[in-house]
């Protein structure tokens, strides 16, 4: 049997078995999910690369699945993160109800994602896309909380995206009568596709929904927040990247092969790219601004995911080798650090009961490992050297600067500086500050939850010095997209102007200086050291009362909010609310026309006849 089909079969059948096994034991679904993902992973990594090829003809349609080098990058992400998340889920989902449904949908969506990246024809692409969408939708509404705001937004936007995609697929099919992507690309190169621009825009619209790009992002924050943390890691980490995958497919594979002689198409290609890039930049800025006023850690991370997806979109949309590389690097990194962060927040939620940063504080001594992984991933997220986030940020900036998108650099820089604000917010809100008695019972999460997070954190640290580990598969993948001979080095970054940054030197310097300072400060005067708790602080000599709160938690960045108040005035959700209210009113009006009264209808008929008469007379 075909390996690729076998992997998909394992996942889908595992889903069904997990769903059924809940009746046997509550513990079983999580285990089955873990086992089936492990099996799929083992199968994937033990097989030679050329076996992932699968063709099936059915009902006159040719389904083609193939994992090329570019897809392989995403498969690494999907399998890796899903495996770690499912390991985590074993501990995380303990004692929760309706686990069968959860794991059923989780495995289904993982299978769907694998299908998407492997699909080489638009029909199977669309089918797997819908499997992924619906299974993720069912997980988003799994907790049942706040369905109206979360579920409906997600469903409506996904449906919009799906219709747009469907329309584009039909358009292409009506032009060249094939669904096969390779054939479509060939057709584009031969200029046999008159509706190329329209179809591309519609496809990009559909992918933008998943990638949570600016005007279509409103579903994302709530959906990410509502899904259980074990799934949110996958959701934000890889599922949203399917949008990026699609965009790369359209922008870099399809539009790029437009004939260079066709000036207008090339121009439109650049134009679409610029628009997308600017949308990405604005998404990054606005989402960052909203992230830093959140009080719920998961929601903060959700907004931050939207912002990060904005960066990734920019890279893809700009389309230079360095920017695409930066974008794909950031995509993998985002899966790593945002996955870690969501998992860490899940651990906090499980252990402390909430992720509301106004309710908990000072967990650093209670959950040191969780703090460590959060710290590492936050530093990565903020892009501070020597961790991996810096590499991605650097490449993105250099790509933009050398490409001449200077104002976009400033916007991106603004959002990534503002990202420090929410980075600190999340670290402080949960782990630092006063250690209160009401969190005294909190303990560190079990090993099965810590282990995946630590693995990812260590990867982030390693990639900070040796990004080449990741450049290798990215460069190979980019070959598929048409970027020949992408150069990369293990520890040196370089841009087209020939400027370099040597990461090895950076890490060594930081390491040496830090160790020296550590030794100096730790050894010196350690005899007179007094360990104090967080209650022994300078409160102007006063002794705080029991019920008084000494942690700064509410409206954390109020001054900033006030300074940036014009940017906060308009909310996208409100615009959509207004739109839907307007539609409501329109439908109301329409209903008024159809009053149900026979006499009115008679009147309409008369009016219509008169109008027809006049029209006919005029034309004759």
């Amino acid at each position, binding site marked *: 049997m075909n390996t690729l089909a076998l992997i998909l079969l394992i996942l889908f059948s595992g889903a069904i078995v997990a769903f059924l096994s809940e009746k046997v034991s509550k513990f079983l679904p999580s285990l089955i999910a873990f086992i089936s993902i492990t099996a799929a992973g083992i199968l994937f990594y033990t097989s030679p690369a050329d076996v992932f090829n699968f063709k099936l003809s059915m009902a006159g349609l040719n389904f083609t699945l193939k994992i090329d080098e570019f897809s392989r990058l995403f498969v690494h992400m999907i399998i890796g993160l899903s495996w770690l998340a499912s390991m985590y889920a074993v501990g995380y989902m303990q004692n929760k109800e309706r686990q069968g449904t959860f794991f059923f949908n989780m495995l289904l969506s993982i299978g769907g994602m694998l299908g998407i990246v492997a699909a080489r024809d638009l029909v199977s692409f669309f089918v797997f896309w819908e499997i992924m969408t619906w299974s993720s939708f069912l997980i988003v509404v799994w907790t049942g909380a706040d369905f109206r705001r979360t579920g409906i937004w997600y469903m409506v936007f996904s449906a919009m995206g799906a219709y747009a995609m469907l329309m584009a697929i039909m358009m292409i099919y009506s032009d060249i009568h094939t669904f096969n992507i390779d054939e479509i690309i060939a057709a584009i190169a031969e200029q046999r596709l008159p509706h190329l621009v329209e179809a591309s825009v519609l496809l990009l619209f559909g992918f933008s929904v998943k990638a949570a790009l600016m005007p279509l992002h409103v579903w994302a924050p709530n959906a990410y927040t509502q899904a259980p943390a074990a799934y949110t890691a996958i959701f934000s980490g890889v599922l949203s990247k399917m949008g990026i995958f699609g965009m790369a497919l359209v922008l870099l594979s399809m539009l790029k092969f437009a004939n260079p002689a066709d000036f207008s198409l090339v121009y439109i290609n650049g134009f679409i790219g610029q628009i997308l890039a600017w949308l990405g930049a604005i998404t990054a800025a606005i989402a960052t601004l909203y992230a830093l006023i959140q009080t719920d850690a998961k929601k903060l991370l959700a907004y931050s995911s939207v912002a990060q997806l904005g960066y990734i979109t920019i890279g893809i949309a700009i389309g230079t080798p360095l920017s695409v590389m930066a974008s794909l690097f950031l995509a993998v990194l985002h899966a790593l650090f945002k996955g870690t962060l969501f998992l860490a927040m899940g651990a906090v939620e499980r252990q402390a009961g909430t992720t509301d940063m*106004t309710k908990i504080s000072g967990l650093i001594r209670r959950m040191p490992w969780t703090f460590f992984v959060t710290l590492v991933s936050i530093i990565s997220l903020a892009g501070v050297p020597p961790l991996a986030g810096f590499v991605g940020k650097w490449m993105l900036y250099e790509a933009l600067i050398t490409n001449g998108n200077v104002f976009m650099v400033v916007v991106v820089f603004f959002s990534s500086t503002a990202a420090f604000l929410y980075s600190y917010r999340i670290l402080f809100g949960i782990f630092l500050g006063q250690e*209160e008695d*009401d969190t005294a019972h909190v303990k560190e999460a079990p090993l099965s939850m810590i282990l995946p997070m630590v693995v990812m954190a260590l990867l982030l640290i390693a990639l900070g010095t040796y990004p080449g580990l990741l450049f290798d598969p990215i460069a190979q993948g980019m070959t598929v997209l048409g970027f020949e001979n992408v150069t990369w080095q293990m520890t040196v970054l370089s841009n087209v102007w020939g400027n370099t940054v040597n990461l090895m030197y950076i890490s060594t310097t930081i390491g040496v200086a830090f160790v020296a300072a550590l030794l100096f400060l730790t050894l010196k005067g350690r005899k007179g050291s007094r360990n104090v708790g967080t209650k022994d602080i*300078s*409160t*102007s*000599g*006063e002794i*705080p009362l*029991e*019920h*008084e*709160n*000494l*942690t*700064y*938690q*509410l*409206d*954390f960045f*109020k*001054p900033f*909010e006030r300074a940036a108040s014009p940017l906060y005035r308009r909310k996208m959700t409100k615009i959509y609310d207004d739109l839907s209210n307007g539609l409501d009113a329109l439908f109301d009006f329409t209903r008024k026309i159809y009053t149900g009264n026979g006499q009115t209808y008679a009147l309409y008929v008369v009016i219509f006849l008169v109008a027809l008469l006049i029209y006919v007379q005029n034309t004759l």
Partner: protein
Amino acid sequence: MVREKETTLYIGPQHPGITGNMMVKVKVQGDTVTKAEVHVGYLHRAFEKLIERRNWLQSFTILCRFCVPEPDPMELTYARAVEELEGREVPERAKYIRVMVMELARLQSFMLWYAGQSGSAGLYTLGQWSVGDRNYLLDLFEDLTGGRIYHMYIWPGGVRRDLPVGFKDKALRTMDYIEKRLDEYDKLLFDNVIFQKRAQGVGIVPADKAIEWGVVGAPLRGCGIKADVRIDEPYEVYDRLKFEVPTAFGGDVWARAQVRRQEARQSISIIRQVLEQMPEGEVYNKIPNPMKWKVPAGEAWAKTESVRGEVGFYVVSDGSEFPRRVHVKGAAFTNGVTVTEKILVGQNIADISFILNSMGVCPPEIER
């Protein structure tokens, strides 16, 4: 008890931004104050109790310590209350000297205010200048009374001793110097755009509530209400002197600063007038042996204007050598406690100290 959501900040007692030894406990949401409580009592020395154990003249050692930055109005008010009880006349020259001392005390207190107001906003240069220049005024006090801060100079029946030789010239020279310096302070503080931005619209005392809230002194005049004990109930020789009582509108820190800025100049003008108009003659209508001095029974209420507002003494005598009861109502008692608690709500953390300084909160006067 359920833990609060708002963060509690203790501004004081040990805090660089507090005016003296008191505490403002604020609950903040973001950087906005949602609730402010003024806690006092850190300086309570039981003065009103101790005065009951001192005789009429010994009380003066305690009186001047009621308010440290500006002790002289306390002495004068008490002396006037005792004079009212006893019916003791004060020589003309002593009245002029008293007015001069009062205005000197006001002036040195304004210098301290300049330091506090600018220092709480982060402009340390002005604070250094004005506190440094204040030493020249304290030198005058030292020449006159022998003490820099506490003088015990005004006694019932006049003042303790006449002006030293050459005092008038020195005082006039000092006034010239201070006036010159005040112009420089204005350039540094009032012409500064940042100070204007900081001060305007902050810490507003509403004009329609001000009287009812018991606001006195510069904060009241900053609301556009012309109220000053020196013109409401002229004491000593204030009715013979030409001076303005400045007012400003808005009731914010800026308005209060404007009022004080002009008052400092008025004080200089009054000191000059007093020095010019001062008649010759006795300065002290001598009281009998202080250890045996009895003041007739009765109750008297005397008030004077200090920098912070009116200072009132309610003195009760039962005809013995010891005062029966001396109650002090300092300006800060209302300005610094209830009014401050009200106007701090809704303000920024950055402005707490700024507002406290502009309200002229003086904790020793509150808790005595």
